[in-house]
Every structure is written in C-alpha cells, then in structure tokens.
C-alpha cells in the first residue's frame, strides 16, 4: 500500500508546473473562437435579419418616427455568442471577433448603438425603410421597376395591383 501512494506522488511531481501566467502575460485563443460581436457601421443596412434570428434578443431594432431614424442596439450582457447573426447578415456587417475580455463596471458600457436615417414614402409620407436598404435592394431590381422602391409597402401594393388588372386585358 505504501508503494502505491509513493507512485501516485511521483506521478504528481512529474507533471510539473502547468499554471498559465495570466493576467501578467497575455494568452492566445484559437482561430475560430467565438468572441465579441461588433457591427461595422459602414456596411450595416438596417434590414433587421440579425434581430429576427437572435435567440436571446440581444439585438433589437426600434423605429424612431419623430426623428426618422432606425436604431439598432446590441447588448453584450445578454449575448450568448452563438454566431447566428454572422450567418444571416446579407452584407457581412456583424462579425464575431476573438476578444473575450469584456468585463465592465457599468452595464451601460455593454451597449453598441447604430442609428441610420430612413426615407419617406412619396405618396403617403410615412417612414418605411432606411436609405441604405433601398439602395442595396435597387441593385438587384430591373431599371424600369426601380421607381416602385420609393413607395412604402401599402402604396406599392396598390400601384402593382393596378398594373396587374391592366395586364388582364
């Protein structure tokens, strides 16, 4: 029995010192690590696909009708770092980096806010979409139908209905 305990002791000594020297030296994280997400303000078009797919609703979209802006808010406190927003963004604006040192003493520091200006409908005057989103969609629409993008959803469907009813003749 004594020999057994000495063997265990010897094995424990052989392992040596394995302690990492953090926080006095930095450590590396592997490639593909899912760290802090951040929105690239040049690329975001305000479509809201990320807010639709986020499981804990850490990303949220609000429309401010008085100022005519769309507000995208990212709250890191509730983020679960799953990466679904990165999967569905059409312009690759939101990406997960490799940072993991995100602590803060104030919960307001965990927010990122992006505000984008919206356009008014030519017929009814309501704010309906951000300007960047209209320009992004316009590139995939044939030229003769592009003026329809300047109307909001209700006015646009009324105009298209007229075209369809004419086409029946």
């Amino acid at each position, binding site marked *: 029995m004594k020999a057994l305990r000495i063997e265990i002791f010897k094995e424990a000594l052989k*392992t040596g010192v394995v302690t990492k020297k953090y926080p006095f030296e930095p450590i590396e994280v*592997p490639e593909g690590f*899912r760290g802090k997400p951040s929105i690239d303000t040049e690329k975001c078009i305000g479509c809201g696909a990320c807010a639709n797919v986020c499981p804990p609703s850490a990303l949220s979209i609000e429309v401010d009708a008085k100022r005519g802006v769309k507000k995208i808010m990212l709250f890191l406190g509730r983020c679960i770092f799953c990466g679904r927003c990165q999967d569905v963004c059409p312009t690759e604006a939101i990406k997960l980096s490799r940072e993991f040192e995100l602590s803060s003493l104030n919960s307001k520091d965990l927010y990122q806010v992006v505000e984008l200006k919206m356009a008014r409908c030519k017929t009814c005057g309501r704010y309906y979409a951000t300007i960047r989103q209209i320009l992004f969609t316009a590139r995939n629409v044939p030229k003769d139908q592009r003026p329809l993008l300047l109307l909001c959803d209700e006015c646009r469907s009324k105009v298209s209905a007229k075209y369809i009813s004419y086409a029946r003749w």
Partner: protein
Amino acid sequence: MPTSIYEVLELMRKYGRIEKIHKDTYIVEVKADKVKDICSILHWKLGGHFSVTVGSDERLINGYFAIYHVFLLDEQKISIIVHTKANPAIPKIPSITPIIPGANWHEREAHDFFGIVFENHPNLERLILPYDWPEKVYPLRKDVSIEELRFKILKPETVKEKVKPEEEYIVPIGPYHPALHEPEYFELYVEGERIVDAKYKGFHVHRGIEKVAEERLTINQIPFIAERICGICGYTHNVAYCQAVEYAANIDVPLRAKYIRSILLEIERIHSHLLWFGVLFHLLGFDTGFMMTWLVREKIMDLAEILTGNRKNYGMNLVGGVRRDINEGKIKLSLETLDYVEYKLRKILNKMLKLKEIMSRTKEIGLLSREEARKLSVVGPVARASGISTDVRKYHPYAAYGELEFKVPVYDAGDVYSRVLVRYDEIFESISMLKQLLKNIPKGDLMAENVEVPEYRKGLGLTEAPRGENVHLVITGRENKVYRWRPRAPSYNNVPSTLVMLKGENLADAPAIIASIDPCFSCTDHVVVVDVKRGTRRTLRLKEISRGRAR
C-alpha cells in the same frame, strides 16, 4: 412470450389502433380504462422499461388533453408510445404509479402544469412550481400566455411576504469546492448516526423553458436553448432535439454530419466522467485526486475549444446538419490529445482506485438491488451497476453509432464502487470509439438540402448522455414553431433512487451516495439533519458529514 417485433405489435393491436410515426417508433391509442393493463405488460412482461410521461394540451387540434407514456424495448429495438385522451372539462386518467413506482414524479409534473388528475396516485402534490404559485393556474395550457403570467397573475409582492429573516429558511446554496451545485436539499432523519428516512426538495432551477420555446422561439432557435438546460451534458440535449425534429419531418442528415456529431458527443462524455471523478474524490477527502483528474480534463476542454469555438455550449447543430467542419489538422491534433489523455489516465486513475481508503468507503455502500432498479426505472450507469444492460447507443442506434464496435460494461454488485468501475470503463471505451470515428470519417456535405418541417407531426429523439438516456418528444406546429416540446434529463429518473439507497446507512456516507448517481442538478452541500429521538434539527455542511467515521 412474444419476442419478435411482429408478435409484439399483434399483442398491442388488441388494445387499440397502432400506427408507425417514424423509424422504429410506434404509437398505440387506447381508452383510459385500458392504460394500466397495457403499461404493465410493456414494463414487466415484455422486458421494456418506462421512460417518460408527457402531458399535452391539444384542445386546439382535436379538443382533448392528451397523455403519452413512452416505453423503450431494448430487445426488439423499438419504442412504443401509449396515447390516451382526457375530457377537457375535468381531465382524469388512472395512474400507473401503483404498478410502476418510477412514474411518480412524471405524473405529478403533468398535474402541476396541466391540471390533469391521476386517480389512485399515492401523493399528488406540487412538485416543480415555486411555493407561492397560486392555485388553479396551470402555466403550460394554451389559453394563458407568458405576458399574462408574468404581469397579471404573479406579483413580486407575494415573494416579499415570505422573506422575513425570522422565518426559518435553510440556505441551500453551497459554496465550497466544488461548489458547482444548484440549490436543492435533502432532509435526512437520523437516530444517532444512522439514517432512518430521507426526503428531497428540489426543482429550484425551474426556469420555464418549455413555455418560452413554445411562445417565442422558432424551430431553429430551440437548439440553442436546449444546450443550456445542463451545464455539463448540454450537447446531448441539442442532438436529441434535432433528431426528434428530423425524424418527424423525414429529413436525411448527411453521413459526415452524423460523424461530427458523434465525435463531439464522445468528447463530452469523457469530460463529464472526469469531472465526476474529481467531485467524488473531493467528497471523500482526497484532494490530490480531484486536482489530478481536473488537470487532465483541461486538455479535453482545450480540444473542444479548437474544434467548436467555445469550451462548452458548442453551438454546432441546426436542424438538418452541423455548422462547422473538421479539417485534417484538427483530426491530427485530436488524436495526439487522446493519446496523452489515455496515457495519463492509465497511470494515475488506475492506482487511485486501488487505494484502501477509497475502496473501503465505497464498497458495499449505497446498495440498489436489481428489483428496486427495475421498479424505479433507473437509467444509465446506475442501472448498469445493478446488473441491467441498457444503453441507447447499442440498442437504439443513432448518429454514427451503428457503424462502431464497442462494449457495454455491466457489473452486478449495485454499490458505489460498481458505479465507479462502470464509469472508469466507459472512459476508455469512449477513447477507442473516438479513434475509430476520427480515422474513418467520410467526405460529404454538412447540411441537408431541403429542410421543410410539416405541421402537427410527432417525433421522438433518444440519446445516451453521460448520466443515462435523454428523451425528447416533439410535436411540430405551424409558422415555424413547435407545438409541444418535452425534454427529459436522465437524473429525473435517477434521483428518487437515492431515497432508497440512503436508508440504513451511516450519516458519513451520505455525500458519496448522493454523488454516486451523478445528479445533473447535483447535490448541494447543505443538508438538514433531523434527529428523530431528540427532536432537534441541525444544518450541517456535507464536508463536515463526510469526515465522519469510515466503515
């Protein structure tokens, strides 16, 4: 005794209409008065075992409350679901607890959430909902929403009334190494040093996951909430849910995705068993063992981080496949890590289990005989240590397990030491399975092509978690949502067996016994000890209790 699938199904046909939902799973619809007979035959005569009871509010589909009893038959490799309907005005169904004591908690839960009354149940009391829940409010019914519950029915003032410092509250939240425990506590009734009776009060961790999943989340968001049900075996819940939806919708998952899922499942099993060894050694007072096993475990966590991007909560699954690939460099790194882990474990863990102190404190303690194990329908290593050979990977193969060779370790003694040996053998079986998977992984796609989920279909997903079998029952709904989802963790069936194991034992052995079933919401370190003779009540820490006299 019918033994082939055809004979079993012919026998079932006498009780009601039988239908095949998907591969190897059948559903029998019976009337309420025949439920006891058919369940008794399935559990005691045909060699199957009872798994879970699911209640469901189907008044929007067909106007009734429904109950599903799920049975798994290992010999014939099929699952049978017994389905009955209850009157929507006053739902009543005969209880099966008198024949199968393991169904006790399942029926109490259906009563808590839906208001279904089980006739002849021994004690139909509140099980899961908090102590201040109002009467006659059943949260999982479809006519009450989360908004109403949160803001109109439940008020925070009711919580405040109970919080007076003079009232006797036991603080069940325990903080020492390893303080990974969720709050719950055991009440042990002692005479001197011997335990006479035990009671259990738990479910402090009830978060209302099922209601959130039915109301707010879509089908592809639920894997992320399923992973966070448990902090150690979360990936098995993820895979079980995805499998249930894939079977219900008849989606074909590519073979490479199945191999990747199996690799991650086995990695999770190794790290969970090493964690359990550390906890057990610590409770027995052997801190060297705790530190050495967790040292080896860190290498596995680093490997998981390289493969998936996070140490826990891998986030790799969507319905229809996986999200990330494994390339050649990662496979080579995994094989090197596994060699190191196997070498280290064979040198130290083997010797630690032969120490006289460990053996004397775990042999012949916490006995669970085979009959008791069958009555309570325990699963996982607890069942395998009592002589029952049951393993979902062998008898109901899923993912890539049908193509692997492995053994299922079974021991007969039924004490804590057998459970130690079962888990020790399973680690090495997992390492050999991982080597087979990594060397033979085929090429192919990662995600199925057309993922369309039709409405109101049933699916049953089974996986083998480190603690036993995981069962998820899913009924799909409309508009990309789920109508009913019932995840059942294996510890649900295993925890009632501690109350049988603790009677007659010494107080000092109680922590080791409670830890030996590897409770997923594991034991707290505060235990209330009630001395029956003197009529006193003391609160002790588990560490103090476990330092008592060893046998």
